[in-house]
């Protein structure tokens, strides 16, 4: 391999790592809900769409950027509360499959509602972050990707600290570990669930803004969940740090596969290659690289 080819391979890997950070941003929203309630929230992609669409629609109606951000945060918080009150609370103690199906239905409702309220038009979203690349040693790196990576890293640090060091965060973990024991010691399950869905809404807003700036704010934003699913399988459904590490692994591996394996099989393989990696991990380590192994005794 000559120097140019080596640099190219490094560039592909770096590009993949930065893409992986974007996948992890979406995956973190899933982890938050799963970690505290054991529910795989399929509506996370729809929440990403709803958040971005709400924000950009407010900005287009001359609402100042900062105010639009605050208003969208409040709306996402209210949405989280509404979901907890109208969907999850009535389904408390139902099987995980029932809850999963509920979130599947929720995804359709949120997607339809978002389009009904804000319309179906495609919107541009300018966060003021340049997409232009700069060069380091022959490798192009986008400013936008670096900012996105920094935001994702900050989010991981904040959330990890929150779960480790705050009383509320510890309550979340207690509920996740043993719901009945948590209720028995006086933790208010409903309040905790409402708080975590609100937090998931906030994460959806962050992901929605960054993905929206990249794709445009349009229906396809809800499809970014397809990129997050293999990340979840690889990293473990209940590990925030796992989501970021798995995001990096998936991003880099799918890009390298596309460039170096793709040409031998007709190309266009990165979409499913990520699932091949996830499947391989699933077979070897079902709980993912960082997920908790659960032992049940009957």
């Amino acid at each position: 391999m000559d120097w140019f080819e080596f640099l190219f391979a490094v560039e592909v890997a770096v590009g993949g790592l930065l893409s992986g950070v974007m996948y992890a941003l979406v995956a973190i929203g899933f982890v938050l809900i799963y970690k505290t309630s054991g529910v795989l929230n399929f509506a996370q992609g729809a929440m990403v769409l709803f958040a971005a669409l709400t924000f950009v629609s407010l900005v287009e109606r001359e609402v100042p950027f900062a105010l639009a951000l605050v208003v969208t945060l409040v709306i996402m918080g209210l949405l989280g509360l509404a979901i907890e009150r109208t969907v999850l609370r009535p389904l408390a103690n139902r099987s995980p499959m029932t809850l999963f199906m509920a979130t599947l239905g929720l995804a359709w409702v949120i997607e339809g509602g978002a389009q009904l309220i804000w319309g179906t038009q495609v919107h541009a979203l300018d966060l003021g972050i340049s997409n232009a690349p700069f060069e380091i040693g022959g490798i192009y790196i986008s400013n936008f990707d670096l900012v996105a990576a920094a935001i994702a890293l900050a989010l991981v640090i904040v959330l990890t600290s929150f779960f480790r060091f705050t009383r509320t965060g510890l309550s979340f973990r207690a509920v996740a570990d043993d719901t009945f024991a948590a209720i028995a010691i006086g933790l208010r399950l409903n309040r905790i669930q409402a708080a975590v869905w609100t937090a998931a809404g906030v994460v959806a807003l962050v992901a929605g803004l960054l993905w929206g700036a990249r794709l445009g704010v349009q229906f396809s934003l809800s499809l970014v969940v397809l990129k997050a699913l293999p990340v979840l399988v690889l990293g473990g459904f209940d590990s925030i740090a796992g989501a970021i590490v798995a995001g990096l692994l998936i991003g880099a591996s799918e890009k390298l596969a596309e460039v170096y394996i793709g040409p031998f099989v007709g190309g266009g393989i990165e979409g499913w290659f990520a699932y091949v990696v996830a499947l391989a991990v699933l077979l070897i380590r079902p709980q993912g690289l960082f997920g908790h192994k659960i032992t049940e005794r009957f």
Partner: protein
Amino acid sequence: MSFFRRLAPALLAATILTGSFSTARADEQFFPLQSYRVGPYAAGGTGFFGGFIDYLTLINDRDGGVNGVKLTWAEGETEYEVEKGVEVYQRLKSTPGIAAWNPLSVGIAYAMIDGVTEDRVPLLTVNHGRTDTTDGRVFPYVFPLLLNPYSESSGIVNYIASKEGGAEGLKGKKIVVLYHGSPYGKETIPIYELLAEKFGFELVQIEVPHPGSEQQAQWLQIRRERPDYVVLRGWGVMNPVALTTAQRNGFPVDRIIGNVWSNSEEDALPAGDAAIGYTAITTQASGQEYPVLKEIISGVYDQGKGNLADKNRIGSVYHNLGIVNGILNVEAIRIAQAKFGNRTLTGDEVRWGFEHLQLSPERVKELGAEGLFHSINVTWDNHEGEGYVTFQQWDGKKWNVVSDWIAPDWALLRPIIEASSEAYAREKGIAIRTAADVDTVIGPN
């Protein structure tokens, strides 16, 4: 108000579901519309079907219909999904007086070919569809009007040649085709190979997996290839992502040429400044300066009857495509009426009208569409109709035409189209039509 305008299509769909929509009666010609106003491709659907309905409304209100025959329509929501499109087809196909189907979806159109052939009702796939349906000898009821995918490819290469000082200038150049990972995206692979061989340019074709929201690997490959041009054969979210990823990888946007499904405001606008200078092919110009557009604004929108919820979209690429599609449908009916009488026509009579749909530039001018589109020359065996193409460049807010009308190389393409259609005919056991079959028309009972 806006909320309720958006609610209207849903209410309409509900009305259709309950079976209470009005169907074509005497002196009415009916258009069943498999529209998509929600879902991932709603922006294109609302624009196209909005333009189509606006033109039909104009004809009804201004002229009292086509020679006194009122135009009616009903919508069924498909969300661009094939099974829903087929469901709408099954539900509406028994409605009396159907003029033609206009699904604006390759998948739905493919699924309907056998059905419409049996029903003897035209199926229009303006600017898209299966290329070999251009051959009316094998596909009597399918019309890929104005532009099929092969002609589009040829038009793009001819445009690049014009920028390089002629066909000779293509020799030794390198062109990458970045295509959507779907049957639609892959359809032009062999034709680009043929064009590369003919003109002597080097060709690299790279696939982007659906939906195309991540393209870093593909654009790194493009950067390594160092092409002179990239042809973007995208769809939906793939288009703005291609433009922003090209910018991220330092590829000049004015060297990217978009195909006909990468040429709308919805494709360029989300990419922000990365799209400024981007060029794309089109069969119809955008803008409101054409007489027919002015009539639609004054005669339809100013009367509160416009179909678009957002008036800023009047004259957009999809809206104008819908209007041109309306013109082609209405003129086919008018031509068929001249032969069969000013009454509700059967689908087969409308098919005859389409097979004689010849609109010269002078006739296009009479229709108020000079500059909006060039002309069309459909015959019984050429169902595309030799549409001309032009190229438009995005300035950050709107498209501006940057070329003359360009003719694709139809003579080069025809033998390949015939080879494909004849293979289809053999596979399906279809007898190839001759000119003598054209006037065999099923009239009203």
